[in-house]
């Protein structure tokens, strides 16, 4: 076999295997869209579940997930961004920096179910928040923290040092340099990362199993100490352990579609933002 033939064969194998990845995604999306599409209606999105969750809507689960996303991000956004700034801009000692990064990586590598155990042990039991939005949001927030930190760090790394030196040379303090020069440049990347991490948080199930998620709760929460339903847990319940799994199949397709649409929209939004803000910064 000549080396040209080998190359030809090898590249075709790569091409085919890559398109398997594409095919898998299309398969998943097609299946969820086709079977879930007819479920999507205003009623489905705004009504309480009825008849053992075989009819009605998923309103409380949507609201619950929105609360959890908002709560966790309220915690993880500011702290994560600050931590990212600290690790990248303030730690000069390389050993310390390595340690910080190692810890961030370790936290990122911890399985979500372990976060669930931890959240239950600390927030639900020890701090006595009970199964509540507060406990669930904090658990999800901790889970999202390393993601936000990494996103921030990467955005800061992408900012060329000449910007920093330029500002410092003009007599600006480090803090002002970061606030006025570095952050504005890094912001588009930070924001895109943050949007993607919202997607991640909204789909997590394991951490909320024992910290907030309610099996069936057809009312909206009134305080942060209430339990809520959540989309991913709801999908799990009605597709596996509900009382009438077969009858709630359609509801499950609809819920899966809503979850996927949510992630899809966030992805598109992140990409659009990346492009829009990216151009804007370049123009300046």
């Amino acid at each position, binding site marked *: 076999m000549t080396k040209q033939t080998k190359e030809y064969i090898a590249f075709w194998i790569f091409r085919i295997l890559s398109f398997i990845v594409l095919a898998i995604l299309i398969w998943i999306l097609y299946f969820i869209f086709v079977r879930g599409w007819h479920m999507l209606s205003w009623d489905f999105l705004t009504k309480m579940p009825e008849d053992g969750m075989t009819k009605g809507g998923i309103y409380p689960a949507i609201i619950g997930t929105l609360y959890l996303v908002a709560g966790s991000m309220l915690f993880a956004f500011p702290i994560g961004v600050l931590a990212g700034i600290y690790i990248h801009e303030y730690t000069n000692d390389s050993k310390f920096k390595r340690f910080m990064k190692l810890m961030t990586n370790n936290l990122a590598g911890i399985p979500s179910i372990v976060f669930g*155990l931890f959240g239950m*042990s600390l927030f639900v039991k020890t701090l006595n928040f009970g199964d509540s939005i507060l406990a669930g949001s904090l658990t999800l927030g901790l889970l999202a923290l390393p993601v936000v930190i990494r996103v921030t760090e990467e955005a800061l790394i992408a900012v060329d040092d000449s910007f920093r030196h330029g500002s410092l040379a003009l007599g600006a303090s480090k803090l002002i340099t970061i606030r006025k020069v570095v952050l504005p440049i890094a912001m588009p990347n930070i924001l895109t990362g943050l949007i993607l991490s919202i997607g991640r948080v909204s789909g997590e199930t394991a951490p909320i199993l024992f910290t907030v998620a309610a099996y069936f709760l057809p009312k909206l929460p009134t305080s942060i100490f209430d339990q809520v339903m959540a989309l991913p847990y709801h999908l799990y319940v009605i597709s596996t352990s509900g009382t009438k799994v077969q009858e709630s199949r359609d509801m499950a397709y609809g819920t899966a579609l809503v979850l996927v649409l949510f992630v899809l929209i966030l992805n598109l939004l992140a990409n659009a933002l990346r492009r829009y803000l990216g151009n804007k910064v370049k123009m300046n």
Partner: protein
Amino acid sequence: MKRKFKQFTEKLIEGLLLISGSLTSITVLLIVIFLFKEGLGLFTTSPMENKNVIVVNKLNPVEHLTAGQIKKIFDQEITNWKDLGGKNDTILLFTINDLSNYFSEEEIGENFEYLPEKLNSIVDSIPNLLAVYTDKYLVKELKGKIVKVDKNNIPDFILGREWFPTAEPAVQLGVLPLILGTLLVSIFAILFALPIGIATSIYMAEVANERVRKILKPIIELLAGIPSVVYGFFGLIVIVPLIHDTFNLPVGETALAGSIVLAIMALPTIITVSEDAIRNTPRSMKEASLALGANRWQTIHRVVLPYSMSGITAAAILGIGRAIGETMAVLMVTGNAAVMPHSLLQPVRTIPATIAAELGEAPQGGVHYQALFALGCILFILTLLINIWVEYVSSKQKFKK
């Protein structure tokens, strides 16, 4: 004055940054503390649930039993005291349910007020008896002898093959089937995902033109973004029936279903990390190869792949880590039978799935609850080892540059 205030603000903000930066380390520390506090508590408790005690005749030489032995006695696998280091005599098992075989209702009393005494007497009178009852029926002058039950211990926990965390009278906490189930599902997931993942990353980094890459990149991002319950749901509705029909099995919920779903979920990690590694190959090195008459494929497999091997290895390990920790999707498709796995076409149960499925039912502070936290510890240690491994492998890549 104004300047002082400004300096103060700067210091304040720097302090705030420091605290935020340390929060990840603190969280890791807290996770370790909370997890291990509950988890290690398991090894100071007895496997006997509900304060049950085992009482035997005073002359019986058997001093202590293990949880495994108790289960075998109840399963009638051990029927002779000889097997437990006692005399050659059959074991006569006695629980509260057998009470009516020995005593009439009047003898016990309306409110069981004579029960402790009666129990005491039968322990005294029947030499080959093994009685199990709760400690509230113990009398002060016990004529029998309480057999000690060995505490839960780490070797039995890790090497035990039986997982019956709610068994009566003694729980069986052997997690070997769960550990093996987790590893089986994860390793096969990676074996399925690696060829496709690496091929895709090579294709994207070295072969595809800009236009194709612009299509593939967001697709992989989206694949990474789909929640794990959705993968689980997809697996449940599509892959499980497919396996059921293809292999003509009684149930489609098998290790294979778990591996396939996990393989799909691990793809984005593997592709992104190894694509980065491949892209890191210096352009000049590739040019040198091409300038020597090598074609692109020769350059890829003789120069690019060896150069990025540590990054690709890191990708594979990270993928395994993700797979080991994945909970919901696996819970939904693997059938969750806590048995020693023998084949891929059999239901298995993984560690995360066990925790997710059982923690809700385990009473807080009980043996079962602690055992689930101990499982969490094992999971934590596994992922920690994997992280360290990844750090080690990728530090080798840095050295090479």
